[in-house]
């Protein structure tokens, strides 16, 4: 607690900010809000799960009435609500105030520890003991013993002529506590600084594509900070996606649910064996005459002028080939949609949504994602895989559903307006590499904060801090030994007692 004796709003606030119980309750409140954020799906996590608008997804899940309550309380983005923000701000300010107080107190204890302690001090602590001594008790011997034991010793004589000795050992623990709390502020500063002066986003690049990435620090920032960021220069980076490939592997063992269930056809089981093992871009970035080119894979970003480009995702699109009487048309395969084949205005076969064209075709189908790339088995290149996929084909006449393996040779036939259309996959594949980019000047500060915190926690919890207070006054001595047991404290009380009572 701060040693403010005068009353006033500032001191009152200071006292509250300095209060450990309040800080703990705010921590627990933050924990509760965090937990709530994982029980109610958060906007940023449900966003990509469906094609429906976000509010519709919530309405579908909770109903209109509950959704209104959720929206009113901001429970769908709890980490951005005023309550969450205020709790964080309280902790930040509290940590700052606590740091100032702690630093001042530690510095005082370090430089001018309270040596002269009256009898009340010893009596108020249950660890304090009192015993009779001879008038010539060897106080100097106690000081020597403490020095021998590695204590920092201060000796003084008080107004009543009592010899007061204070010793402490492991003061580093006290400084570690300061460092630990400073670390929290450093972390917060790093995070805030990075979010104000940093940039992040995604860039999607096709194989062989070139793009200029412009970093505008003011873009997307809060109006509170945007006004002074507007004047900062924009940074341009020239990006060139030289190559992009998606490598596949073959699963060691198919999940049991796929292996044993008769619901899954052999075609689907075979298709399910192949998984994306790696996606690799060869990317060249250039800025102000500096060019960096490297292979970018997950966990290995490209770094140029403090901009980091991460391989964060990919898109692989296949094309459906529809041939009728030697005439071939190709169309991009749309994802997660039941399809059918119709004829367009020129009479050529075309893909269409099945639900909009009922009755025009004898078969509708749903395509799994197309897979195409080099296949590695046991880490060795085995062969080129695909393009391949599985079509779940439903016969509209019989309602029978069958799985058909689709590749550049195999396929199925659909009757459109009485004429057969051969459906298979085209050789064409469209791959996109998705990069997350980040320029975060707060990162070094954050790392410093983390290191300070871990070192601080380690030192604060593991360096034993011991204090010894001794008061020798005529025929009486008082002794108070405090600190974590062990670490050389064993028997110290006894030894001091023995020195003082030695006749």
């Amino acid at each position, binding site marked *: 607690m701060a040693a403010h004796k005068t009353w006033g709003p500032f001191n009152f606030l200071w006292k509250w900010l300095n209060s*450990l*119980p309040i800080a703990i309750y705010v*921590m*627990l409140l933050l*924990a509760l809000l*965090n*937990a709530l*954020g*994982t029980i*109610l*799906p958060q906007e940023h*996590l*449900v*966003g990509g*799960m469906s094609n429906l608008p976000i509010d519709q997804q919530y309405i579908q899940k909770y109903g209109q009435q509950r959704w209104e309550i959720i929206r009113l309380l901001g429970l769908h983005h709890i980490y951005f609500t005023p309550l969450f923000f205020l709790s964080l701000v309280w902790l930040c300010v509290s940590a700052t105030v606590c740091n100032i107080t702690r630093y001042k107190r530690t510095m005082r204890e370090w430089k001018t520890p309270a040596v002269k302690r009256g009898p009340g001090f*010893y*009596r108020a*602590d*249950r*660890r304090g*003991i*009192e*015993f009779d001594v001879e008038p010539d008790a060897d106080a100097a011997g106690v000081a020597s013993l403490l020095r021998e034991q590695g204590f920092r010793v201060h000796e003084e004589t008080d107004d009543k002529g009592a010899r007061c000795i204070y010793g402490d050992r492991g003061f580093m623990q006290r400084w570690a506590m300061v460092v630990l709390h400073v670390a929290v502020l450093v972390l917060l500063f790093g995070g805030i600084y990075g979010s104000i002066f940093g940039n*992040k986003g995604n860039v999607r690049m096709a194989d062989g594509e070139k793009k200029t990435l412009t970093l505008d620090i003011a873009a997307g920032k809060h109006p509170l900070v945007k006004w002074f960021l507007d004047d900062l220069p924009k940074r341009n980076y020239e990006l060139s996606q030289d190559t992009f490939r998606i490598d596949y592997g*073959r699963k*060691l*063992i*198919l999940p*049991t*649910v796929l*292996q044993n269930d008769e619901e899954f056809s052999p075609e689907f089981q075979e298709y399910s064996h192949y998984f994306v*093992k*790696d*996606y690799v871009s060869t990317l060249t970035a250039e800025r102000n005459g500096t060019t960096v080119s490297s292979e970018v*894979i*997950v*966990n*290995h*970003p490209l770094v140029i002028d403090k901009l*980091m480009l991460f391989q964060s995702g990919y898109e692989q699109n296949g094309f459906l080939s529809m041939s009728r009487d030697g005439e071939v048309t190709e169309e991009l395969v749309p994802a997660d949609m039941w399809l059918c084949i119709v004829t367009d205005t020129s009479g050529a076969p075309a893909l269409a949504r099945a639900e909009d064209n009922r009755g025009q075709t004898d078969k509708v189908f749903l395509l799994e994602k197309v897979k195409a790339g080099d296949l590695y088995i*046991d*880490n060795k290149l085995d062969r080129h895989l695909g393009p391949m996929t599985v079509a779940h084909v439903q016969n509209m006449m019989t309602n029978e559903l069958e799985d058909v393996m689709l590749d550049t040779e195999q396929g199925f036939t659909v009757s459109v307006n009485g004429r057969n259309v051969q459906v298979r996959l085209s050789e064409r594949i469209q791959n996109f590499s998705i990069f*997350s*980019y*980040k320029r975060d000047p707060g990162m070094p500060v954050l790392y410093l904060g*983390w290191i300070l915190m*871990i070192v601080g*926690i*380690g030192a604060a*919890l593991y360096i034993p801090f*011991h*204090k010894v207070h001794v008061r020798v006054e005529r025929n009486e001595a008082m002794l108070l030994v*405090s*600190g974590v*047991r*062990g670490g050389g404290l064993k028997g*110290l*009380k*006894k030894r001091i*007692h023995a020195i003082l009572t030695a006749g």
Partner: protein
Amino acid sequence: MDEANIQQINNTLQFYDYAVFGYMAAFVIYAVHVFFARHPRVGQIAATVLGAAWVLQTVFLVKRTIFYYHQHNGFVLPSTNMFEVMNYFVWLSVPIYLMMEWKLIKTRLFGAFALFVPLLMLAFNARSMSMDPGAADPRELFPSLKSYWLWIHVSCMILSYAILALGAIFALLYILRSLRVVNLERFSSKFSLRDLDRTSYRMVLFGFPILTLGIFLGAVWADSAWGRYWGWDPKEVWALIIWLIYLGYIHFRMMGWVGYKPALINMLGFATVLMTFWGVNILASVFNLNSIHAYSAGGESKADLYFLGVLGLLALIPIVMLFLPSPSADTLAAELEEDDEIVPDIRRRISGGGSGSSDGLHPSPPGRSPQPPADSSQN
């Protein structure tokens, strides 16, 4: 190809099965030791069986690591699915307990209690394997998992969870003892409130820095894999919740709280560990959360939902108990009286004691101890 792999995997699983039997046997012998035969020889046998089971589990772990090494052309810690993570948890818990037994508590009477959480993990694995025979099979590696951070981050997190689990067991024993549900002290003086409280706190002091390090290393890994060190992902958020609760616990201890209430907070902290470890996977499945930590997805079966409910209760019960009157405050205060080490030079408040004399401030009257003081540092 698949046949050969299945054969190889089944061969390695045999060692896991032997280890499970070993752990169960050790549990039974430890239980006999504490409840019926407190002869040291029985404790030694239990510890030996436990050690042997751990060696068998190590063989399983090494064999699976070798299998992965051949598959991925490099070291991969077997932690690619829930089965392997649980296995790793047990594998880390056992030596920590044995070391604790040897160095810290110096008794083998706690073995049956300490093995409770590891056995729970093994039971969970058995249930998963009974529902899905492929649950123990090795999985393919996601690209983001191909990093040396995998073993560093996972090891730190699981190690901290294992240590905090042991701390929670001692806290639970403390609560049961103070509520007089069981009178453990009749078995041994090692079950005194003072020892239970102290050991529980020490385990948190040991586990908390490792937890902090694990979260930090996870953030470093996330930054290098996805370009962000924090993304409010459910798993990340729950790791933060654990951290905040144990931080609160340590601060309460610094304020001078000992005994019953800190034990409840410790239990609450461990409930959040379980939630992070298990519950989040189920949450992600139930609420269709797009979690980047969904490598070991949970299910949506009724049993999973019940399990989620149980985890919720485990967190709720300590919270409710915190607001109820503490049991037998005077007795607890008296038992904790002699404790000199827990909070350095800070006045203590015996939990539930309120203020006044029971808040731990006992002025020493003049001449109170004319005799040489007993050495409070001796155990």
